[in-house]
């Protein structure tokens, strides 16, 4: 066979092959990671429900009740969060009525594929200090896709199986640099908070498909409610 013809043909075949692989990769990133993440998140939610329905019944007095209650009994030391395991469900009505995602302990890459990740060095849910959570904005189910739509007063509701925690967003999402770990401080000053409190920080990437910046949202604990009293008002539309 003519060697030029062979070279041209082989080269074209390699080009077609590379193009096909690229198309497959785009399909994987845009579509398949979402399919996998949705099923992984559903699995984590199921595990939480399973644990809550079979676990010991919570003592109503042990639920955190912010406020100057003098005779409040000291709650038993809560069990530490297990790395990579879910411990709460987050609801953000602004992101849609059915938006409910599991919150897992830790921010490892593999953990964030299965849900939102709690920065393990930050406060516990509902605790004094800053409870910080990271989530994907794009790929892996796009949990924080609508992050920029958050506005002051929006509810961020969390349920740890015993208590509903209703946080309220305090300002529009804040754009910052990836190294700005000060946004996770127990009292994040850039949010305008003056003194100690029970805060929530959400982080995701900015721009949508990039990694040059981060987008931050801050909230404060507005109300708590034992689960046996039903869903908090923020989830009723």
């Amino acid at each position: 066979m003519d060697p030029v013809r062979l070279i041209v043909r082989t080269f074209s075949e390699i080009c077609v092959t590379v193009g096909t692989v690229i198309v497959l990769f785009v399909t994987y990133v845009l579509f398949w990671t979402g399919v996998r993440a949705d099923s992984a998140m559903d699995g984590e939610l199921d595990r939480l429900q399973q644990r809550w329905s079979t676990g010991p019944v919570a003592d109503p007095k042990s639920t955190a009740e912010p406020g100057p209650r003098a005779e409040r009994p000291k709650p038993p030391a809560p069990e530490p969060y297990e790395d990579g395991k879910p411990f709460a469900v987050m609801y953000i009505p602004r992101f849609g009525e059915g938006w409910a995602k599991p919150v897992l302990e830790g921010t490892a890459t593999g953990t964030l594929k299965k849900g939102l990740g709690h920065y393990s060095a930050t406060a516990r849910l509902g605790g004094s200090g800053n409870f910080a959570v990271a989530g994907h904005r794009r790929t892996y189910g796009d949990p924080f896709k609508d992050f920029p739509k958050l506005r002051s007063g929006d509810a961020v509701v969390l349920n740890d199986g015993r208590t509903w925690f209703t946080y309220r967003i305090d300002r529009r999402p804040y754009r910052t640099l990836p190294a700005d770990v000060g946004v996770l401080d127990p009292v994040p000053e850039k949010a305008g908070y003056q003194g100690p409190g029970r805060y929530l920080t959400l982080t995701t990437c900015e721009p949508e498909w990039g990694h040059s910046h981060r987008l931050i949202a801050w909230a404060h604990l507005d109300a708590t409610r034992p689960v046996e009293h039903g869903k908090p008002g923020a989830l009723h539309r």
Partner: protein
Amino acid sequence: MYGWIWRHLPGNAWVRALISLLLVLAIVYVLFQYVFPWAEPLLPFNDVTVDNGSGAAR
């Protein structure tokens, strides 16, 4: 390249077509299961934390 593979597959045209299909499916499976999960973190969509995922940096 593809002509060379086709000529080296055994059987008649139908058997060759079937083997080709299986080969394509196997390659797609390996790509989705092993190659893409390895390549995907090299893209920027995973960086959603302010401390680059170390978790302990404060």
